[in-house]
């Protein structure tokens, strides 16, 4: 089992600010944590980060040849430091 730290490189291709140290609130259960603390799955077609408290998918990032597809509906909000 991996955690959100492993997503830093993939997310870094898309976000200007460092995302794994950002704090977010799970839209499913309301738990607040840093993205690095989520559970990470990288063998799916892309990166999936799930809430460590309720397993809700917080972030899904899929890379294809010429585009990124990003889903973040599992996050109620995100606080990035910059």
């Amino acid at each position, binding site marked *: *089992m991996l955690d959100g730290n492993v997503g830093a490189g993939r997310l870094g291709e898309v976000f200007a600010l*460092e995302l794994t140290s950002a704090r977010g609130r799970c839209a499913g259960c309301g738990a607040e944590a840093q993205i690095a603390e989520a559970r990470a*799955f*990288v063998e799916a077609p892309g990166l999936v980060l799930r809430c460590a408290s309720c397993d809700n998918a917080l972030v899904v990032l899929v890379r294809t040849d010429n585009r990124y597809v990003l889903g973040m509906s599992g996050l109620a909000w995100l606080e990035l430091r910059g």
Partner: protein
Amino acid sequence: MAGTAVLGRLKPLTWRVASVADIHEETPRTRTLVLDVEDWEPHRPGQHVDIRLTAEDGYQAERSYSIGSAPRHGAFDLTVERIDDGEVSPYLVDEVRRGDSFEIRGPVGGYFVWEPHQGGPLLLLAGGSGVVPLMSMLRVRPPEVAARLVYSSRTLDDVIYRDELETFGDTVVLTLTREERSGVRTGRVDDELLRQVGFGPNENPRIYICGPTGFVEAVASTLVKLGHAPERVHTERFGPTGR
């Protein structure tokens, strides 16, 4: 200049080429690769890089490895442990030769990071090759910052950076889980050991735990039970990539 810093961050993160400048055997299962990268800026201790290997048929495998060296310009060191059924680590540990090159992305990560200006005390807990990013922190720690590294290893021969760790004296506490050796502790990192050698919650240490998931979760919950604030506890887990 603030504007310069912002522009620095806005440079898109992409893959670039690292070439193997040197190789050191650490243990029978691990070795350190010294990697040269053009325009490499010093990393922040605790950060990692992603490595991407591409097969002739176009199949790609991507894995993350922590940087073990102190930050420097132009190069960094990765220490990699062989996972026997792994896709990337057997190549890095058994096959790669000086002069070879592959793609890297990084340095990345901003959560599992400690820099000297953050101060201490610094409590580092390593399970197996989880010692690698913690070593980067220990290597830059100024003498005035109190620190302790508690390192759990299966056997003495599995201890990475053993000679260098001995030079740190009481700062490093080693415990073996699968072997008994005279003069070395045995057993898991439990509440008794942490009470003995860790800093107390009243000292408010910055805590970094890295290792296999089971190790990280057991040690993190023990520390919180001992009264350490959860927000002082930083964790990095490694293990199988899926499921």
